[in-house]
């Protein structure tokens, strides 16, 4: 399972992120292939963990991220969706190229998992260096 497909699936879910040991906990709004992300309703914590700020929205450059913590429930959701996408790809592909179908399926993974909503909004956290 690709790390970025997991992250795509985490959209609209709360998450934690970190920068200089600072952490940002919030709901993932969007992310791209560089792992640049935007978060909403963010709680920022300083390196020592003794000061907190609340931000309406923030953008974090992917290169500054150290770790992301994502809800456990997402793993099963993404795996399931990938299996489904693969099976669908097999059926539709026929004698033609498999590549494009598979890429389509990859995009679908993120969207479907968001649409279905995994249990109650779990969290993703990001550490940034």
């Amino acid at each position, binding site marked *: *399972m*690709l*790390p*970025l497909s*997991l*992250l795509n699936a985490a959209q609209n879910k709360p998450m934690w992120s970190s920068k200089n040991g600072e952490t940002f906990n919030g709901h993932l709004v969007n992310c791209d292939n560089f*792992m640049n992300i935007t978060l909403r309703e963010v709680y920022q914590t300083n390196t020592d963990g003794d000061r907190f700020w609340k931000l309406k929205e923030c953008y974090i450059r992917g*290169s500054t*991220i*150290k*770790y*992301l*913590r*994502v*809800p*456990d429930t*997402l*793993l099963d959701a993404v795996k399931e969706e990938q299996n489904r996408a693969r099976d669908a790809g097999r059926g539709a592909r026929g004698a033609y190229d498999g590549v494009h179908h598979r890429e389509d399926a990859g995009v679908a993974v993120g969207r479907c998992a968001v649409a279905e909503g995994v249990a109650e909004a779990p969290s993703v956290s990001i550490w940034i*260096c």
Partner: protein
Amino acid sequence: MSSLQGYVDRRVILILQDGRVIVGVMAGFDQKSNVVLSDSKERIYSMDVGVEEVPLGLYLVKGDMIVLIGELDDAVDQAVDLETIHAEPIPAIRY
């Protein structure tokens, strides 16, 4: 070309640039060596008390941060009583 494929679904140990040690089951990776760990725990070493394990759950580690990935021998690992291990923590990389 070296690949992490052989580690997928195995229990692995990660050592990171900031000196942290994380064990977990490798759920996936990509071309940049970003790694997804499921059921992960951080192992915090100290000289004063035994090894402390902090559960982190599903965890995505940026490839930039990773220094080392190794496969864990589950049998050997479980035979070790972490409570009795006292060790200096690994310092962060200095540039």
